[in-house]
């Protein structure tokens, strides 16, 4: 993955949050690189990538941001399931939208959703991990892109 490819995912994130509420801008803070996939907030949707690239795309955030999106969708979460589901759906949408640039051989899985920081997942260990900090309505999220 080249550094400029991260812009594809930033465009996808902007499009997603604009669709939720055009009047609430998504703030993109400067991306940076870490030597492993992190950080993780309360809820993380993980999409595994194969085909033209290999690795993962993750969307991680806290329940407050997810609840605000659910409210915009007029969905009242009666339990945690809707919040978990939405974390996975956002990861799926951002990854799937990236095929506009990367093409149909950028293969994505269904999302895996994890909570907290302590979980097992076979993240790639030999790829650069790009971290894109996002702020929406004063709530924080990270887009994690780790592709060989």
């Amino acid at each position: 993955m080249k550094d400029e490819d991260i812009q594809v995912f930033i465009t996808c994130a902007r499009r997603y949050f604009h669709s939720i509420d055009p009047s609430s801008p998504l703030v993109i803070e400067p991306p940076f690189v870490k030597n492993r996939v992190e950080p993780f907030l309360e809820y993380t949707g993980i999409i595994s990538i194969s085909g033209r690239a290999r690795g993962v795309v993750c969307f991680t955030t806290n329940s407050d941001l997810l609840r605000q999106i659910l409210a915009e969708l007029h969905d009242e979460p009666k339990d945690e399931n809707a919040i978990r589901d939405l974390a996975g759906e956002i990861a799926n949408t951002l990854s799937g939208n990236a095929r506009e640039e990367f093409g149909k051989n950028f293969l994505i899985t269904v999302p895996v959703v994890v909570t907290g920081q302590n979980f097992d997942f076979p993240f790639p260990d030999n790829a650069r991990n790009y971290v894109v900090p996002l702020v929406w309505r004063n709530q924080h999220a990270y887009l994690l892109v780790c592709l060989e």
Partner: protein
Amino acid sequence: MKLLIVDDSSVVRRAIERDLSSGEITEVDQAENGEEAVRLYSLKRHDVITLDITMPKMDGLTCLDKILQINPAARVLIISALRDRATAIDAIKRGASGFLCKPINADELREAFQLLLSD
């Protein structure tokens, strides 16, 4: 009119149902994967189906093929995050009636739905 909403996300299924709820639709079923969708469709022959592509057990394009084997005239609107042109063309060639890219808003969805009904 009977509507079948197929998506592995319950949030998306509920959003589609809310956005399309109208007097025209008298019955709504939901399925969270392609296998369940084919089973429900074979039982109830819904008038319109909204269908995601990336799903567990059976993906949406395989599901589309199976539904069209049951009824070649089935009206299927694909609603997927897969934003590449090749996937949209493939879906239409296989027999989908329309293709919408997520994220979608209610107006886009209603417009696509009305186009589907008038086709």
